[in-house]
């Protein structure tokens, strides 16, 4: 059908739109329609016969037993938006010139990538200097493997600063048409797309709407048809779900799980005491948080791996259920009795500023801590100041962090508890926590090529973390998509909002 235009709310305009360089959801949200990864997350089977991955630019993948190579068979007959053919040279270029040296997550995943062999136009063989678990590569594919065109970037002195990063040329179902800063991005149908009968839409417009309440209004007024990433405030969902012609989806974010965690500065004597940390864990009513702050659109967390990652999840860990008396007893035991005023000690609590929920949880945590005699002051910073205070200057006692589980614990989870990360790295262990046992376990898992053995190590890690609580995980949450009922095929994969939308349709 023709003339179908999908208007979507977007809440930010990334300064670098190239997903091969910036692997973040804000970038993927727009660019994933233009630039494709080797494989995408899926609710069902994958190219290697195992669950969870669907082929995109790669049709199949296989890792060697020694963990020193991985082979990708590439899709044939794919053309770049400018008409050039897509070949293995593009993959090699992307991996060696972009993912490994430039990409925020690729730098870690491909740290040991040495070379990419291209025996033919449709085969790419990744060679690693040290054994690299294929489980990790595989899990990371949807996030780290966005392929860019070699002929576009080749010869650029500084790829990271290239103009081409914001005028994307990809292989995806939509071509980048225009960006009116502050107003919208417009993507148009790629008539030469490899997917048969795809894309179904003629045009996608990402309309920049920074205010969440405004997005809800625009949706109701019919000015936009879709708002993903909870752009419609959770509190408004109950009402808006009753508006005829509007659907609410909570599926489609399974591989984009955000984790609400309390980061702890272990340099504070009180917080270095495990009893105090346990007391704090007991002081938090996780059910209340899920029910009231997330209005049920979340799950209580048991540790650093969310339930949404069944491959690694271990629910059989020490839990710290909500128990104010227990918390008080632990604090008394730890040697911090209530003083005259009823407070044991004072803390500074820095909630991360980017989500309403993290802030609200900050407000809640202040109250929860007050109930056990800890006097917390909430410090409200903007993003830059928060980054500086928590991750560079370590000038905090507790921080609320929305960390992301990215398919494999090695990508962005173990960094939360492994000691030795230099200052300045966000969402890493900046609390100065150091546990030899945990460090050794993480290092071992990093070298373990065998999938089962590696998985077991991570399950054990969850137990250790739950016992010692270097970080307190409270809830795991996804997002909500609200769309006009005209929009079809919504939320049909675990990373739907940041996938290609090749099959998304709009009923007349």
């Amino acid at each position, binding site marked *: 059908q023709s003339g179908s235009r999908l208007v979507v709310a977007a809440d930010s305009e990334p300064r670098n739109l190239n997903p091969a360089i910036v692997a*973040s959801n804000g*970038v993927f949200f727009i660019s994933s329609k233009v630039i494709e990864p080797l494989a995408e997350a899926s609710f069902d089977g994958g190219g290697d016969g195992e669950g969870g991955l669907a082929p995109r630019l790669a049709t199949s993948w296989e890792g060697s037993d020694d963990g020193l190579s991985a082979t990708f068979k590439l899709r044939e007959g794919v053309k770049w938006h400018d008409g050039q053919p897509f070949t293995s040279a593009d993959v090699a270029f992307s991996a060696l010139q972009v993912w490994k040296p430039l990409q925020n997550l690729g730098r870690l995943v491909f740290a040991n990538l040495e070379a990419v062999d291209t025996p033919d136009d449709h085969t790419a063989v990744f060679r690693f200097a040290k054994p690299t678990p294929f489980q990790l590569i595989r899990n990371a594919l949807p996030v780290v493997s966005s392929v860019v065109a070699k002929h576009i970037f080749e010869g650029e002195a500084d790829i990271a600063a290239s103009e081409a990063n914001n005028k994307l040329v990809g292989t995806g179902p939509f071509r980048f048409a225009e960006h009116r800063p502050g107003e919208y991005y417009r993507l148009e149908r790629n008539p030469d797309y490899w997917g048969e009968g795809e894309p179904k839409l003629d045009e996608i417009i990402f309309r920049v709407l920074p205010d969440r309440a405004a997005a809800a209004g625009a949706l*109701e007024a019919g*000015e936009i048809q879709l708002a993903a990433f909870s752009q419609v405030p959770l509190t408004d969902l109950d009402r808006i779900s009753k508006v005829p012609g509007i659907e609410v989806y909570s599926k489609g974010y399974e591989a984009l799980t955000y984790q609400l965690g309390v980061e702890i500065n272990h340099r504070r004597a009180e917080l270095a005491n495990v009893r105090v940390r346990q007391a704090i864990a007991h002081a938090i009513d996780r059910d209340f948080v899920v029910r009231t702050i997330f209005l049920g659109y979340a799950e209580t967390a048991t540790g650093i791996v969310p339930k949404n990652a069944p491959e690694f999840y271990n629910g059989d860990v020490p839990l710290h259920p909500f128990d104010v008396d227990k918390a008080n007893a632990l604090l008394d035991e730890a040697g911090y009795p209530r003083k005259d005023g009823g407070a044991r000690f004072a803390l500074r609590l820095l909630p991360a500023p980017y989500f309403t929920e993290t802030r609200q949880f900050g407000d809640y945590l202040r109250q929860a801590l007050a109930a056990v005699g800890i006097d917390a002051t909430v410090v409200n910073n903007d*993003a830059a*100041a*928060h980054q500086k*205070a928590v991750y560079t200057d370590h000038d905090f006692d507790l921080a609320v962090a929305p960390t992301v589980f990215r398919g494999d614990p090695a990508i962005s989870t173990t960094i939360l508890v492994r000691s030795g990360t230099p200052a300045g*790295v*966000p969402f890493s262990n900046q609390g100065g926590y150091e546990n030899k046992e945990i460090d050794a376990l993480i290092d071992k898992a990093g070298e373990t090529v065998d999938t089962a053995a590696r998985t077991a190590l991570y399950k054990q890690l969850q137990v250790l973390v739950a016992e010692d609580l270097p970080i307190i995980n409270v809830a795991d949450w996804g997002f909500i998509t609200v769309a006009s009922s005209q929009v079809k095929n919504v939320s049909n994969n675990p990373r739907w909002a940041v996938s290609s939308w090749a099959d998304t349709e709009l009923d007349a």
Partner: protein
Amino acid sequence: MNRALRLLRRRLISSIPVLLIVIVGAFFLLELAPGDAADAYLLSIGGGDPALVQALRQSYGLEGSTLSRLWLYLTSLARFDLGWSVTFNRPIAGLIAERLPNTLWLMVGAVGLSFTAGSLLGIVAGSKPGSWRDRLLSTGSLALYAVPSFWLGLVLIVLFSVQLRWFPTSGIETIASGKQGLARARDIAWHLALPVAALGLIYLALFLRMMRAGMAEAWRQDYALAARARGIGPARIAVFHIARNALLPLVTMLGLHAASMLGGSVVIESVFAIPGFGRLAQEAVAGRDAPLLTGIILVSAVLVILVNLAVDMAYAFLDPRVGANEVVA
């Protein structure tokens, strides 16, 4: 008009040190803030490693001292180059040129609305001080003034966009409509109706009350009594003799409030998703983009100075006494 020219020259000369203070102040404000552009960026992309942080700092030119950066900035300003925005990865001049018109339209609309409606209603209210009409108008407008603008904006959206669907909820024009010329102007006006109302209604009270007070004051002047003594009717006195005198302080206030209105648009732009100056400034602050914020503040200061110049000219036009010492006859 030689007295106008004299005024102009004096104004321009005295604005040079003012702009210098503004530039240096704005620059330091962000330079001294906790966190820099690299910090802001890193969080926005969800993390990275230490080497990336280093690379970012280097590519943003954040290595030298604050003073050396200020010097660099000033020298580039001297070449009429506003610099490069790391947040947007674009030249600042282009960025500002793109956003400024939207804010200007909003301001012009809001000022036009509040000034004309305010002064007209002020004449109505001030022509009979103490009457119920006067009380209603002046207290009612004050109540509007006391409503936070963002809240008024949201209520207008709910009422007129979502419920009645008379106006669009947000944006400056219909997206990707391809409209040109007059059709586009109409489209923009239609989009601006609500934000202009939200901002204009707030300031309406200011002008209304000032006009009303000015009218009351002017009525007490001898020339009002003299006009009555010459047999001129009250309506004619109000409109032809008093209103113009009462308008003078309003014009002055227009200049004084130009800056505050520009500030007020920050919130309105955010509510109505208008890609304007205010939002750009917010993003500059969030991104710790000192050159961008300085550029924005500099341009708004220049704008305010220009408005004040225009106000002075208008004042000189309205009040023959300004700057004149020559004696005729």
